[in-house]
């Protein structure tokens, strides 16, 4: 009887020719993301998206109009305060379009980050009762935010069209083709950071407060309000280290024709996205198995 329990079990498994549908064991492999399982639960993801969409603006007077009011009011405020009063430079673009492009892009990233970072804490009741791939929640957040983003983006295009008709000098160009890539990088960064933080908040709820004002602070370190070109040369390196900077600048260049476009910066941003998604997934995956014991 010198065999350890594990060995005995392994022997038993070897002896048994039967097929098991599921084996529950203490720890999963590090990078086993079980995307196949997530695919099986795709109906659930879509129902979560629907739920979020339907329930958010129920019992509000203006309903879905809020999707347009939010970016519009933010843009008007920025235009008034930073544009008219502080007279900050806007790369020679109409102030309204400059701020709106930044706001719309930033809102998608920030929403993804803040909402996914609440995954475990907000759903602890649900997660404690039934099993489904936990990743379904952050992925559904990503998708429902994408819908919001497209609504606001379309709204932005309306204003672009208006300014073009009025003969303002803005030049949408071939970089528009990079739009899907920008979207992918943004979504990835929001998801990666969000799930990483959500996994850590299971132990320290304090992080949640950090996220909400951290995101606001980060906005000032992203060219939403101030273009990179307006920053003194020797400080530019810092703002360019922010992986969200190339996204905002490229987006602005593509649709409005002014901004800093650098393939190297985009590659850096893409690389950051890949790393953060990988790290986030690993941590999320590890926490998922036992988080009920700590929440």
């Amino acid at each position, binding site marked *: 009887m010198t065999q350890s329990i594990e060995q005995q079990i392994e022997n038993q498994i070897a002896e048994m020719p039967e097929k098991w549908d*599921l084996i529950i*064991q*203490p720890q999963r492999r590090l990078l086993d993301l079980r995307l196949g399982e997530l695919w099986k639960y795709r*109906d659930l993801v879509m*129902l979560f998206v629907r739920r979020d969409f339907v329930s958010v603006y129920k019992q509000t007077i203006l309903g879905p109009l809020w999707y347009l009011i939010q970016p519009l009011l933010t843009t008007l405020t920025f235009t008034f305060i930073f544009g008219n009063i502080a007279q900050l430079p806007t790369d020679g673009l109409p102030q309204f379009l400059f701020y709106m492009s930044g706001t719309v892009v930033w809102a998608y990233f920030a929403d993804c980050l803040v909402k996914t970072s609440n995954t475990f804490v907000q759903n602890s009741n*649900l997660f404690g009762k*039934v099993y*489904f791939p936990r990743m379904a929640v952050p992925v559904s957040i990503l998708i429902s935010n994408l819908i919001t983003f497209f609504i606001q983006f379309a709204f932005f295009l309306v204003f672009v069209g208006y300014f073009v008709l009025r003969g303002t000098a803005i030049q949408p160009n071939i970089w528009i083709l990079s739009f899907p890539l920008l979207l992918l990088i943004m979504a990835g960064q929001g998801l990666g950071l969000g799930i990483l933080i959500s996994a850590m908040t299971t132990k320290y709820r304090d992080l949640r407060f950090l996220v909400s004002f951290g995101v606001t602070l980060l906005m000032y370190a992203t060219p939403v309000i101030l273009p990179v070109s307006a920053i003194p040369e020797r400080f530019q390196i810092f703002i360019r280290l922010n992986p969200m900077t190339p996204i905002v600048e490229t987006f602005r260049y593509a649709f409005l024709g002014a901004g800093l476009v650098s393939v190297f910066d985009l590659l850096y941003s893409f690389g950051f996205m890949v790393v953060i998604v990988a790290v986030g997934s690993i941590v999320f995956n590890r926490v998922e198995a036992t988080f009920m014991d700590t929440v």
Partner: protein
Amino acid sequence: MTVAISVEHLSKSYRLGQIGTGTLTNDMKVWWAKKLGRPNPMLKIGQVDHGNTDGETIWALKDVSFQVEQGEVLGIIGRNGAGKSTLLKILSRVTAPSSGFVKVKGRIASLLEVGTGFHPDLTGRENIYLNGAILGMTKQETARKFDEIVAFAEIEKFIDTPVKRYSSGMYVRLAFAVAAHLESEILLVDEVLAVGDAEFQKKCLGKMGDVASREGRTVLFVSHNMESVRRLCINGMVMRKGILLNKSKIDDAIANYMKSGSIGDAHMLFPIDKAKSAQFTSIKLSNIDDIECNQFRQDEIVRISVSICFREKLHACMAAISIISDLGFPIFTTSDWDYLPDLRFCQRLPGKLEYVVMIPEKFLFPGRYFLRLGLGISGHQKYDQIPSTVGFEILSEGSIMAELGDKRIGVVTPMLEWQRKS
């Protein structure tokens, strides 16, 4: 017979003390209380304080191994903290085991709580699909079962109303209906039948019985209600303190379970639940001199004192006590309406009420009994129900059997008149 679930050397440990409470402020509060020698303020009521020493390990499950065959309906019984729920949580993959394996054939669906994931703003229809998906069904599977679910829940008229407008009964019916119609080979059920009115409970039990016998699914059932366990299950498994005591036929398991524990206190307070319009607040057993005890000579009176709290004006309300044998068989039920028929037409006003009910001497057979309490209007409404409360033991001392030294059978020993005709 093929094996559906094979549990091998399953253990689950919880580290206490190291985990902390989640925020720095709460961590400080715990530390401060410890300094002052006060109990840990973050523990839930009823939770045992294990001293919170760093790194202490509690085994919720320890080296549990067993197999469940396909189509077997297995009842898992044990006291609070025996590890039943932890076992179901591991099986339903809500949490991972610390060591050991579980091998499963077929899809597992768990019914750990009805209505999980219901969103109050969505309509009944939307919630059926959402809940179904959470429980692992695809949209098509839910759609196939949709009419059946709605019919079972009896909510046809309200299917497009947001569920926040439902009565609590409708809510629970809908939730149970979705879960009960899951397409899975294995069903885990944890104490869900303690909801809804009596009629619906009966229906749920019936449905569960169908699931097991007619559809041939494997069911693991955890409950404190020995009657429903006995009715549903073929086999039973007794657990105590994380260890599997034995697995046997359900009757043996229940007898084993009842024998294993002490009867406990003669006095019990029930948690205040403001959501209930009326509820029991306490129960006490005492002897003829009103001295608290739970062992009685057979020729002694058993005094049962219950306190009831009414929070709202009720048109009528019946209080009932059932005496349950240690095997889970109900012996008899008595209610205040039996003795005071006028109460049937009498309003109940908010306030407290105390009853003393006496079980006559030389009536119950020597043995162990448990009390069950109920408040409501028979067949219509249930305000409060407590499936198992204090227990007591009738000793054989002072009984006619002890006097004669015989071994008669039965559950009661009424003194009857024997008229001699010739």
